[in-house]
């Protein structure tokens, strides 16, 4: 097992390098002199000279890439000019908040998605199945940002159950209960689409598995129907559900950008949008590389989970 994890980690290195290359090339598309592009309105001759010295921006493309990579390997993602702080500090702080939001949503979509999918499959063509299928269709069709806004109108403005926005109360907030209070609506809004996708997939994976011979064997043994469905069948269906969970994690992370804007959640998505509007290139670059790399690592965890679940995978 340890060897397998190590192997997967080693294989991740070229992927992460590839990510840096792609991000670098995209940023190199910015027309004009890179130093002035990065500095924008801060492009005083002094600053230009400094950034050229630090990042080698006057050097050829390839050299620039390696200087940038080398700096990042040393934890130096550059300086955010709009915030006047080191990029890595901002990114870490914001990413932490995004993880709270996206992580909660991911757990929600996994649990409820699988639950709905299994019930739907076990009651195929029944009332529950039809209701779930309809809810799923609605869920995957509604844009999360619109859903978020409607939730604010209904649950925050009309019913006053939850705060309209933010992550903590301005005065005296910040404890766990306060964060959960603020987290509920954005996490739910973010989870809806992914829940729908997971439910759909779980349903079809379950239908596929329930027709297999080993399910008939379980029934022939006299296994209780509940255990046939939630044990034998779900266990086998998980093999095709787990990879999709990995993909959905990416979608949840992506959807977090909208939700963070709607609910003014101080996460990395909102930071990136602000940075783009402010043309804070280094912040965008650093944020994207960091989050994408984390996502690669997350997918390794998914693969390892998959290999733990399925003994047929050679580790």
């Amino acid at each position, binding site marked *: 097992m340890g060897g397998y994890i190590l192997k997967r980690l080693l294989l991740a290195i070229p992927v992460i390098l590839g990510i840096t290359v792609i991000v670098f090339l995209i940023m190199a598309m910015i027309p004009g002199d890179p130093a002035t592009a990065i500095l924008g309105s801060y492009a005083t001759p002094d600053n230009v000279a400094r950034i050229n010295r630090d990042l080698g921006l006057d050097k050829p493309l390839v050299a620039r890439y390696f200087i940038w990579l080398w700096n990042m390997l040393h934890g130096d993602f550059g300086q955010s000019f709009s915030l006047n702080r080191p990029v890595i500090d901002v990114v870490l702080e914001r990413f932490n908040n995004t993880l709270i939001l996206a992580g909660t949503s991911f757990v929600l979509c996994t649990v409820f998605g699988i639950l709905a999918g299994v019930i739907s499959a076990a009651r195929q063509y029944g009332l529950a199945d039809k209701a779930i299928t309809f809810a799923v269709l609605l869920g995957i069709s509604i844009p999360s940002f619109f859903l978020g806004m409607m939730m604010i109108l209904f649950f925050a403005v009309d019913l006053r159950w939850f705060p309209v926005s933010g992550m903590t109360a301005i005065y005296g907030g910040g404890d766990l209960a306060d964060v959960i209070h603020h987290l509920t609506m954005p996490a739910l809004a973010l989870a809806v689409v992914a829940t729908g996708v997971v439910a759909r997939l779980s349903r079809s994976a379950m239908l596929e598995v329930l027709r297999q011979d080993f399910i008939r064997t379980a029934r022939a043994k006299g296994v209780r129907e509940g255990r046939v469905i939630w044990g034998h069948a779900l266990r086998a269906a998980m093999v095709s559900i787990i990879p999709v969970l990995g993909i959905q994690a990416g979608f949840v992370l992506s959807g977090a950008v909208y939700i963070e804007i709607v609910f003014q959640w101080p996460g990395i998505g909102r930071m990136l*949008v602000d940075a783009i509007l402010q043309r804070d290139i280094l912040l965008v670059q650093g944020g994207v590389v960091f989050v994408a790399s984390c996502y690669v690592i997350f997918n390794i965890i998914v693969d390892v989970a998959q290999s733990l679940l399925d003994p047929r995978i050679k580790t």
Partner: protein
Amino acid sequence: MSAFFKLLARNRLALGGLIVMGLVVALALITPLLPLADPDATDTANRFLPPLSDGYLLGTDGLGRDLLSRLLWGTRLSLAVGFAAALFAAVAGAAVGIIAGFYGGRTDNIIMRGVDMLMAFPYILLALAIVAALGPGLVNALIAVSVVNIPFFARNIRGITVGLAHKEFVDAAKLAGMSNPRIILSEILPNVVPVIVIAMSTTIGWMILETAGLSFLGLGSQPPQADLGSMLGEARSALITNPHTSVIPGIMILIIVMSINLLGDGVRDALDPRLKSGALSRPMAATRVERKERPAPETSTDAILSLDDLHTQFHVKDRIYKAVSGVSLSVKPGECLGVIGESGSGKSVTALSIMGLVASPPGIITAGAARLEGRDMLSARFGELRRLRGRRVAYIFQDPLATLHPLYKVGDQLIEAISCHRAISKSEGRKKAIELLKSVRIPNPEERIDIYPHEMSGGMRQRVGIAMALANDPDVIIADEPTTALDVTVQAQILSLLSDLRRERGLAIIFITHDFGVVAQLCDRVAVMYAGRIVEEGPTMEILRAPAHPYTSRLIACVPELGEGKRKLEAIPGLPPSVDNLPAGCAFADRCLKAQDSCTKGEIGLEGSGSRAVRCLFPEPGFAEETA
């Protein structure tokens, strides 16, 4: 193609989606012709008018602009941008995919690595990076969304192209001296286009949503121009005071995406052949029983298990397959009954019907009884039936690789067979499992107990299957072709194991097979099935010596040498009749050398004297002599 549209039309939801989508598109197309106010004309005197105001059907926004006009123009823009993004991604992705798939080798490798890298990003990060580099704006957002979706198309199309690149017509074109680009354009592309179109139609809703999303973030269309996303984005600041400005564009996005999703689902269902046949439905916990009449009361008494006039059918769409039509059987304790027939003769369905294990839907038991010590299990409630399954009547199936759970250790599967009928401690269960493995002569049971089915050989797996059947000391074992997947030596071992177990434990066995050689080794009596009915029945030795039914004698003639029968029954020329359209009279008439006109006139009963019975008007001479 017309069948496809028919299927689509039958799916009412998809049709609804199509109609709504058509309406929205039509509205978007005629927007410039409608007598609408200028969508960008501000009128500060009339800010935030509610819907249904005078002259403003949907009210106005924060700058006093007519919302209806903005909505229609915004819809037009959103649809156009979404469609353009899908088209662009499809064309670029297809180009990449075709090149990678057609040239293969290094080219393929490098391109697909790149595609994998792009897919390693959570999609929006990539889009944001591109917008960051190009700057906010509708065209740039469009580019970003298309680029992000190129890998999806590239992968799909590459897969198809790889398949095509090795087809004969491509080789022929190469031999004819056509250049590669020409082959791609004239041979590959026409075959790929339908796939591209379908992939595009499934992603277009997504593209509309994504471009709207970027506009919502303020990175797409810039004021005063507005698509649905930026309308929603601009309205957000007035969400609480004037919700209608948000609700109106939001609902429009919802309508568009939902109708596209409905349509897409319909298209997918129409294309998936499994849905047509209804094969995607899952079997319920027990076969449906729908008997019009109560079964006749029990007749024989010394049998442990008996089937009485069993009818099992498969209802698929409007066709009815009569898999089993009126089978009666019985076994006494310690007896082994063989049920033999070709595939499709209904022998397995008969076996599975006993404990309600026929997949349902589509299977339905329409008449008859299956009695265990006189108690009809087809009338039993599910709870009772479940408690009998595996405990009193156990099954051994063919192909143990498919019938054992692939993800559970064999030991756990054995223990479960016991624990689902009585509480058993962990250590006790383990001990019992090891004993069971020992009893079926598996070497090193202490180690084998912790491995997975895929780590065993076929013969070992089948022994596990038998051990599992023995777990609760059942009274009856129903073995459904348990040796078919095995080679001859292993088969012989398994058969001798079963016959020992029968002797030691006094088991009644119903043994389903297509092989008379196997029957000869194990079974006291045999029932021959054809087209869902028993055509001959009697003691094995007598039937082997003097078969009565022409079909039986042909089956016996197929066995090269007793005990080595691996040969298939397909040696009999012709095919059994389809059970959804059985002929009148003898079902075997088409293949029978002795068939007379009278054979196809009316019902032929299963008749006989003493222990033997046959369903034939002109039984074989040997039998006639013996009974005479």
